[in-house]
């Protein structure tokens, strides 16, 4: 009987220890750099659909009317990333590309700061934490390219100019059959904001 009790105790301790270890492994994997690499949406997925108005009354919508839209998830802190600003300046001349800045919440500083760093032509839109969550974005500055069909073409955290241009190149690549089926739980959804 003592042996049976010992077995139960040992087994339960081992099970609980393993469960705790699995919790630890999962927590680390979901909060570290590895997890940030998984942020954003995979190419080919349907991007969230929205329509927002900027401070001067311009209506911006996603999917865009132009072939490609670059959604920059950032705010006034973008000025701390001069290389990213250079990258945006490099690609903003392209007519087929529409660039928008989407803030997580109302940010009075975003527009003046963008004007100061020479990105005044880029509309600044007030998003929401739920919209950021719909794009699976936690860390900024984050870039997502969406095509006119509403599909994500490329997405990544950006820290350098070359990453912006590289993402634009990736966005131009045709989607393969493996990219056309949604692979993540995020689906087309409408965010009730703006117009």
């Amino acid at each position, binding site marked *: 009987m003592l042996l*049976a009790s010992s*077995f139960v105790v*040992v087994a339960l301790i*081992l*099970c609980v220890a393993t469960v705790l270890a699995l*919790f630890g492994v999962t927590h680390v*994997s979901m909060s570290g750099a590895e997890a940030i690499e998984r942020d954003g949406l995979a190419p080919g997925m349907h991007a969230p659909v929205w329509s927002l108005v900027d401070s001067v009354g311009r209506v911006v919508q996603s999917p865009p009317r132009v072939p490609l839209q670059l959604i920059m998830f950032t705010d006034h802190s973008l000025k701390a990333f001069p290389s990213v600003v250079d990258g945006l300046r490099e690609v903003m001349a392209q007519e087929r590309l529409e660039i928008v800045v989407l803030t997580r919440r109302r940010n009075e500083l975003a527009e003046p700061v963008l004007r100061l760093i020479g990105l005044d032509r880029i509309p600044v839109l007030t998003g929401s934490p739920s919209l950021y969550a719909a794009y699976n974005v936690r860390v900024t500055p984050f870039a997502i390219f969406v095509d006119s069909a509403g599909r994500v073409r490329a997405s*990544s955290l950006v820290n350098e100019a070359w990453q912006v241009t590289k993402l634009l190149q990736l966005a131009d690549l045709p989607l393969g059959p493996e990219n056309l089926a949604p692979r993540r739980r995020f689906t087309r959804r409408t965010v009730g904001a703006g117009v």
Partner: protein
Amino acid sequence: MDVLVLCAKTAVACLLIVAGGAKLADPASFASTVRLFIPLRIGWPLLSAIAVGVSLGEFAVGVASLTFPAIMALDVLVFAIACVFVAVSAIGYAFHRGRSCRCFGALSQRKFDAAGVLRGAVIAGIAAVALAHVNAAALQLDATARVLLFAAAALLAMTAFTAARARGAGSRREVVAQ
């Protein structure tokens, strides 16, 4: 000595439950590993069925070993499975070196390498320790203990399943940052 045998028995049982639960979270990726070991060209539905069957088998043997510790035949079966692990690791090391083994689904990024063969041998060694003679009559569990152990095994499998799902969800390929 008895405590050592009991620890070995429970450790291998827990390992099988975790491995089975984690593999079930993404049977498609485990099916791609299974394909490496089947020389015939067979379709994905069958490969997936084999992958799910193997995962469920591991889970079932683990649960049975945990809840019926007095049955010696189960210890022999667990040892045989551990020997299969060693064989698979060795074959993988010989023919598919560097490929992901997906032994624990997305919970582990381990590949077929020499360390993998060693790990398999250690698991087989622990399973061999569990084969040592223990008074079976003294290991008879009552219904309450069995239910408790079954619940613990289910919790373990669900945690492994969820953890593997969370780790494997939406692994990215086109990241240019970092």
